[in-house]
């Protein structure tokens, strides 16, 4: 086990797959010579050369379209969209083309490709560079959706995404890029669609994703220590496929569910999970299900405002404590 940053785990995951499989190519804006604006792809150009690691014009539709065309003709492209907010400028290629091609052609077209993108808030970048848009992708049938919270998962899930025969949208949490963690050495491949129970408690279940996993874990410690509330914390890791068995199993045990989402409130992934639990786990529920989300507003940029908009550890603790008093 080596200690790697989340950012270096990205490069490690890509490198592992490029070494293994010559069909894996990588393209994006400023990703090659500059190693990416988040420095998550440093060294790849040197290692694999300009034929496989390519800088692109500011043409997101062309970048994803090219990845799609290459994937359907035998390559396994990894494309970077610098900030997940920019998925909006190429949303047609994601939602209408990549996600639908296999189905529309009744299985003729395969698109083994990965779209990596930096997601989420916390850097004071303002409303157009800070969104958590994993629910945009979850809504669309035909694309898998992954969002790791730890460096090891970054490497293992990225490798799994590259090997997956279906298109995967891989959300990297930009506020976690400098986080360090143990990452298995050598070839390491994880499995898509498996949530992880990071902590077990009898009182309630918290489901979280990416940056919110860390906040949920911190909140759980405080809730236990200071308020005697024992929480189970589930890191979803992927939204599609969704590990409903783990969720239903854990909620079944605690009878209480809280979701912690960075996305704005309406139609977030938490709502989907609530709807599954409210249908399939209803009789095991002891109390209302509560979603803790960013309010339904665009993100403000000033430190004070941003910090008080996305769910904080303090807010998670407060809301769970209040609601557990029911």
């Amino acid at each position, binding site marked *: 086990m080596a200690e790697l940053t989340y950012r270096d785990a990205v490069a490690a995951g890509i490198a592992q797959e490029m070494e293994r499989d010559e069909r894996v*190519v990588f393209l994006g804006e400023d990703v090659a010579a500059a190693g990416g604006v988040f420095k998550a792809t440093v060294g790849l150009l040197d290692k694999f050369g300009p*034929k496989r690691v*390519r800088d*692109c*014009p500011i*043409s*997101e*539709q*062309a*970048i*994803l*379209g*090219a*990845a*799609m*065309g*290459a*994937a*359907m*003709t*035998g*390559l396994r*492209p990894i494309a970077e969209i610098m900030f997940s907010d920019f998925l909006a400028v190429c949303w*047609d*290629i994601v939602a*209408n*083309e990549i996600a639908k*091609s*296999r*189905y*529309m*052609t*009744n*299985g*003729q*077209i*395969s698109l*083994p490709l990965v779209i990596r993108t930096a997601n989420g808030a916390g850097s004071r970048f303002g409303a157009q560079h800070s969104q958590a848009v994993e629910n945009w992708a979850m809504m669309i*049938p*035909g694309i898998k959706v992954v969002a790791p919270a730890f460096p090891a998962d970054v490497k293992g899930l990225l490798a799994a995404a590259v090997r*997956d*025969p*279906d298109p995967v949208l891989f959300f990297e949490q930009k506020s976690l890029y400098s986080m360090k963690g143990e990452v298995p050495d050598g070839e390491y491949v994880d499995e898509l*669609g498996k949530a992880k129970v990071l902590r077990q408690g009898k009182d309630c279940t918290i489901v979280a994703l990416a940056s919110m996993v860390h906040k949920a874990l911190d909140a759980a410690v405080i809730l236990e220590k200071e308020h005697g509330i024992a929480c189970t914390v589930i890191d979803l890791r992927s939204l*599609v*496929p*969704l*590990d*409903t*068995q783990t969720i239903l199993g854990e909620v079944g045990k605690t009878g209480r569910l809280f979701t912690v989402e960075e996305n704005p409130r309406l139609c977030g992934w938490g709502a989907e999970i609530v709807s*599954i639990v409210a249908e399939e786990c209803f009789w095991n529920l002891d109390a209302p299900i509560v979603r803790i989300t960013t309010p339904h507003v665009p993100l403000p940029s000033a430190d004070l405002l941003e910090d008080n908009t996305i769910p904080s550890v303090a807010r998670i603790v407060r809301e769970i404590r209040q609601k557990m008093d029911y």
Partner: protein
Amino acid sequence: MKSATNKKSPAPPAIEIGRETKSELYRLQLELRYCEKRAYDLFLQNLIKGTSHLSLGQEAIAAAFGVAMRPDDWTFCTYRGHAHTLARGASMEGVLGELMGRQCGLLGGKGGSMHLTDVAKGAMGSYAIIGAHLPVAAGAAWSAQYRGTEQVAVCFFGDGTTNIGAFHEALNFAAVWKLPVVYVCENNLYMEYTPISEVTAVEHPAADRASAYGLPSIIVDGNDADAVFKIASDALAKARAGGGPSLIEAMTYRHSGHSRADPGKYRPEGELEQWLLRDPLVMYRDRLLKEGFNEPTLKDMESIAMGKVDAATATAKASPLPSIDDIEKNVWADGGAAWRN
């Protein structure tokens, strides 16, 4: 009536078209014409639902590329893609069956008229959102370049498509990466019901923009299969040789409305009639006769083509409907649609 001009074009390539090729070009144009007409009849009989966009009048372009391309080249088409798909050798019952929503359809009834695809024949999909397939074609070309296969991607689209952002991104991208892709704009003078000249800042929506991507301006008479064949062969050869992309504007006209729903009333009186005088099939037949093909040979070809369409129609009509189980198939590579465990 605007007609094709060569004013900005490079000297036509010195390709001589042999008799066998000419025969192929006629055969293919016939099949495309008859099959499209059949599709129209089947609509009228309410055997085809939804929408459908016919290429009647534009067949010379699809046919010429179909003949000029290598079997392992790739075609990318629009919703107006029946002819281009057939021109790559996709089966007629596969096409008509898909339009009728039958099991024998190319897509088993999943896609319909606007998404015809036959990967085995290099027909890599029909795309119904304007512009989307231009970057996709660039990607296929990149794959050929990367693997050194000398395959070429050919991407067809309309005049109206030149005004959407994806056109611009794809052309620049292809030019910078010198990709083996041929972009073919079929200028039929209309984007749906609106004359292209009313919504475009230049006279030739593709050719007048080629220079924005460092490409030569190429305009060809899209109703002349030989002329298109020559230009196509040249562009394909250039792409195969590593010379990068081409952008070709083929001047043509659709004889029918934009789609099934459209009677084409917005056209000025007499415009259609003038273009019918330049019907690619009529012109090509006349030329073949002048060049020594004889009437019985051509008649034969015509009845063979019609027979093929009739047989395909019968097969497609006899094909069962798809199964309801198909709905939750083929979202994923494992054949299923599961998003959860």
